[in-house]
């Protein structure tokens, strides 16, 4: 068993853990963290594929340690994932702010809020 295989298995496991979290976590923030785990699992698999591709070359003495194409794509993917996280957090904070406002003004809480009271 090589290091790449090990990390490949790890990536697959992270996908599983992330999927479970996105589906089963009670709050949106926890879902979002789990989504980031899921994404990192996918990126890790891509990194393993890059290493496998480059590893063969390095063994042949061509000096490439990894396939640069997946690596470049993972960098792009990380930036996109960050933007997604930022939007989700902004939405979440705005929603929480509105709910707080509604509570302090003595209004009945909006629908989305009353549903959330049954938390774990």
């Amino acid at each position: 068993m090589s290091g790449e295989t090990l990390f490949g298995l790890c990536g697959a496991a992270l996908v599983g853990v992330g999927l479970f979290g996105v589906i089963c976590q009670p709050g949106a923030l926890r879902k979002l963290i789990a989504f980031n785990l899921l994404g990192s699992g996918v990126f890790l698999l891509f990194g393993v594929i890059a290493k496998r591709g480059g590893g063969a070359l390095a063994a042949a003495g061509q000096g490439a340690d990894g396939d640069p194409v997946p690596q470049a794509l993972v960098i792009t993917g990380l930036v996109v994932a960050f933007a997604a996280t930022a939007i989700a957090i902004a939405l979440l904070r705005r929603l929480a702010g509105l709910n707080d406002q509604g509570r302090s003004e003595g209004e009945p809480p909006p629908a989305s809020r009353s549903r959330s009271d049954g938390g774990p």
Partner: protein
Amino acid sequence: MEASAIPTAWLAGLSAPGGVLLVVPLILPVVGLLLGLLLGGRRLGPFVFVLLSAGLAAAVVVAAAVVTGGEPMLYQLGGWSPPLGVALKADGLSVVLLLTSAVVTLGVAVYAQRDFRPPGARETRGSLAFWMLLLGVWAGLNTVALGQDLFTLFVALELLTFSAVPLVSLDGRAETLAAALRYLLFALLGSVLYLLGAVLLYGAYGTLDIGLLAVQIAAAHALPPSVLAAAALMTVGLMAKTALVPLHLWLPPAHAGAPPAASAILSALVVKGSFFLLLRIWFDLIPGLLDLPAAQALGVLGAAAILLGNLMALQQARLKLLVAYSTVAQIGYLFLIFPLAGTTSGPTWALSAGTLQVVSHALAKGSLFLAAGLIAKALGHDRIRDLAGVGRVLPITLLASGVAGLSLVGIQPSGGYLVKAALQGAAEAGGTWWWGLVLDAGGLLTAAYLLWFIGHALSGHGPHPATAKAPGRAQELVALALALGSLLLGLLPAQVFELISVGRVPPPEPIATAWAGAFHWGSLAAGLLPLLVVAVLVLAFGPWGGRRRPGPLGWPAVGAAGLGSAVGWLDARLRCWPVAGFSLLALVLTLGVGFAFGARACVT
């Protein structure tokens, strides 16, 4: 395994010098997004309008070039050929999406000039956000239409999602924020699954270019596990983004809560972006999937969507929710083409029907959401039971709704009719008559809820017209124009329909001859007859009676009410997050295992 040798030569032969034309639809929205941010304020709306007009012109030119050339146009960005570089490709399918998105976006842009113009000289939140996000959606769609690289398409999908989600919550109410958050999280889940599929394909073949991948996959003796797993993951991920039942949890609140112009774009175009990628995967990337029994599963889900969406639409008390659930149902029609593609008529025929449904629904649903917005604005609410009097205040709007409805129901000569005729024909040819049954039931249910709404709007007892606010005439005319476009699709010259088969194996029976003479007075009458029956039924249940009745259709039967509440319960269950998540996982596994067994059966 030298990945570069075969494909480069193959592609070089296809790339035409005029291909730089393809860059224009890509650059226009990009430049628009950048300059629009600098422009801001009052000038942004007119600027977007001018840009979209130019975009429509560019799309028309590309379409003309593809049609006259008779083969797909290819362009290699940066002069690098795939697999190293990224290619753009315009075949008939891309051209149709380019044109549809340009037309609908332009219509919405005309409509929105009034709603999203800052009142004073200062820029407002809504105006900047709406116009910029509209450009973002357009940029995403154009890239989806032309992209030929799975990762570029991923970025385009995210561009689409990031632009669409804030459109949902533009009015800032807590419900719409919650809907937007739910939409975002589920859409992100969908994109990750799609990306995972792309990663596996890269691991198997060392390229992400659809053309190169298709060549190598087709050359394989049997579909390897990585391709099957990638197909399952990408299909389910894109289904989640397209909101196919049972993954539709986010759609009704998101589409019903957005401002009307945004709803029109979301329902008409955004869900089509991810569906379009599904078409690319199933028809271009791995056409072998269509022969597997698992393709039936997509059709079954489509049928479920038609029934569930229509039954739910029938029960809605609010017009915008009714229209949103109608979208859930209409998405179902899109997925009926997958089981029918393997029949004798061939995949190109099914693909044509699907593409036509994309166009027809985009126009009709865009119109219907715009009309619903005008009604809600005039009355200050959109409760269907209190719509009385709208017919007198907004005759053009109501006419637009009616015309759009004809297309959704599938009456001659609308695009919806052609879609249903094509699907019926394919179903009969393949001996699978039950798909036809679903189509008929769907049409009747659609007719029922649209008549229910129009009947209420036409009834006379209501607020005096003078109390309602008058809408902009241009806004009403846009809604009508889109609806008429959808209705008159069936009267287009036959050659237009051949556009879709550019770059594909032509079907045994040319599309043009089948659809050229589609319009008959006889079949119009045959289509209208059941409609009349439904009308009488709706009439009997009484929007004109003025009495409030408990059930959606009034008194009729405890049975109907029971069915209604059962469907409502089912829908509410399915739209719970854990249940939808469970469905998603179950679908991934079912499709994956189904593909694997099907592929093995094919080989042996």
